[in-house]
């Protein structure tokens, strides 16, 4: 049997997005890497590349409108404030939330810490109205074993600060949340459930419905980590039913340094601030201060205005493509990649083996080759992937592997990129001499 004949022909359904037209919007995709090779960027899950419209929006802000928003009486300050708030309105519309429910943060990690610190600050708040969601001894915080470190460590730390107990939902062997003990893990002592909508390593899209419903039954808050879902699928906070949704701008074609904390207004309004200082105050006296309502209460200091404006442009770009089509595009690529990768002897996909409730993050191991070495061979071919534990150490530990190689897809990804990946994995097997079928090829 020849090498070619042993491979399935592959199921290439027509892609919903025009990959060539989209690639033309991304200046970085025209460069080459490693001695003239085409850049095959399969690391959008770590950070996405930026279309020209996002870069232009940031440059235009600095060249023509730069000023600190919400301060100053001059024209530039007015324009900067207008652009900053217009971006807020666009982001709010993108996720179906109200404008005053959108807090700009540095990134997802910052957004989660803002909530985690608010819950412990609530315990010592002077204002009785800020104590409603206080976390203390005897309370429980629930996470899952699937979380990115950003949605795990802040809750561990919250529990250490307050004496609360951290509990978690486990994983099944096929990369899904194990909800069999949901009813006991989430109970009357639970103050908050923090769960990812889509795993950054397994690709799993979680069934949030039953988790939110159970949290409602016991009066617990729900925080959804949307870092890997909001960039890749339509997300509507009304449908979600959660109290918080957090995500990062840089993973959704936007700049680094800006993220979003969406919070149900009545919940945000009952929380004390995390960071304090300028912008977030109402009245300041030497004896003490009062704070603005949300979202300003959670935006201390001069914000990352240009990045917020850039994020607004990124959202506009995604809206023009249509999030339904973005999701369908990635699903087609994921199905093809799963089929092609799993057809290679020695390759094991870590996570759901098909596209059912699954996004475009494909993690895998290659027998006999450490992921770093797989990544190095791929890099030599111009293919950028992530290797390691993907900031989800408990997940790789759960599946008994030290690390994985992960490919992630986005709007500019085409079947040619997946083919390059598959060829690259085979090249790695040849280079390290671990391809059993090569001997007979």
């Amino acid at each position, binding site marked *: 049997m020849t090498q070619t004949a042993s491979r399935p022909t592959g199921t290439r359904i027509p892609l919903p997005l025009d990959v060539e037209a989209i690639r033309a919007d991304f200046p970085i995709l025209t460069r080459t890497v*490693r*001695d003239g090779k085409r850049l095959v960027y399969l690391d959008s899950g770590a950070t996405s590349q930026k279309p020209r419209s996002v870069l232009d929006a940031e440059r235009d802000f600095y060249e023509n409108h730069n000023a600190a928003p919400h301060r100053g009486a001059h024209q530039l300050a007015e324009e900067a404030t207008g652009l900053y708030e217009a971006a807020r309105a666009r982001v709010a519309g993108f996720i179906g939330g109200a404008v005053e429910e959108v807090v700009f943060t540095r990134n997802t990690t910052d957004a989660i810490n803002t909530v985690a610190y608010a819950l412990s600050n609530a315990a010592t708040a002077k204002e009785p109205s800020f104590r409603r969601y206080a976390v203390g001894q005897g309370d429980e915080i629930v996470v899952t074993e699937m979380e990115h470190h950003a949605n795990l460590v802040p809750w561990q730390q919250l529990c250490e600060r307050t004496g609360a107990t951290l509990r978690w939902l486990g994983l099944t062997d096929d990369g899904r949340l194990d909800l069999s003990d949901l009813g006991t893990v989430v109970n009357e002592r639970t103050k908050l459930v923090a769960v990812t909508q889509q795993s950054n390593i397994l690709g799993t899209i979680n069934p949030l419905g039953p988790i939110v419903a159970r949290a409602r039954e016991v009066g617990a808050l729900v925080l959804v980590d949307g870092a890997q879902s909001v960039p890749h699928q339509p997300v509507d906070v009304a449908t979600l039913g959660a109290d918080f949704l957090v995500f990062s701008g840089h993973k959704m074609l936007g700049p680094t340094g800006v993220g979003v904390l969406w919070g149900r207004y009545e919940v945000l309004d009952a929380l004390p601030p995390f960071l304090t200082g300028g912008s977030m105050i109402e009245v300041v006296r030497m004896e003490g201060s009062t704070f603005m309502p949300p979202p300003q209460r959670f935006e201390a200091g001069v914000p990352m205005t240009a990045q917020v404006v850039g994020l607004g442009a990124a959202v506009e770009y995604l809206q023009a493509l249509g999030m339904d089509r973005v999701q369908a595009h990635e699903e087609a690529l994921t199905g093809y990649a799963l089929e092609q990768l799993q057809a290679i002897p020695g390759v094991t996909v870590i996570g759901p083996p098909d596209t059912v409730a699954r996004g475009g993050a494909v993690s895998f191991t290659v027998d006999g080759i*450490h*992921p*770093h*070495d797989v990544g*190095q*061979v791929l890099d*030599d071919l111009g293919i950028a992937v992530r*290797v*390691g*534990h993907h900031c989800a*150490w408990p997940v*790789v530990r759960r599946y008994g592997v*030290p*690390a994985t190689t992960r490919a992630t897809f986005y709007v500019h990804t085409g079947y040619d990129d997946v083919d390059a990946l598959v060829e690259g994995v085979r090249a790695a097997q040849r*280079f*390290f001499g671990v391809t059993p079928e090569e001997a007979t090829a």
Partner: protein
Amino acid sequence: MQLESMYQDIILDHYRNPHGRGLRDPYEAEVHHVNPTCGDEVTLRVHLDGDTIADVSYEGMGCSISQASVSAMYDLVIGKSVTDALGTGEHFVTLMQSKGDAAVAEKLEDELEDAVAFAGVSKYPARIKCALMSWMALKDASARALAAAPTGGQA
């Protein structure tokens, strides 16, 4: 392909047939080092005879570079004084900082023996930590072993 410049045959040989692998008694100090960016791990024991390194034993998991590096280090440091072994380690750090400068590798060839094959790694900043992990573990374990010396070994 540029790959061969990093994955020298000597490195792949050490990776496939590591020298001195396994944890052994006696030892005066044991350390566990990790590379948190990628999850590479090594557990390393040092046994001293006076101030001479009588044995270095280890278990670890990680990429070919990290695993080959600890094997090559084993060959280099057994029988050396702690001072000389750590001096060799300093030379290895210099090699890792050489950004592929062949002159540096040439100068260090006698001192580093097989380990000079890691010169190609110095061109890949993300992999340097993989190569250095075992040397950092040795430095840490030796210091602990020397500190423990007056009261003798644990075994």
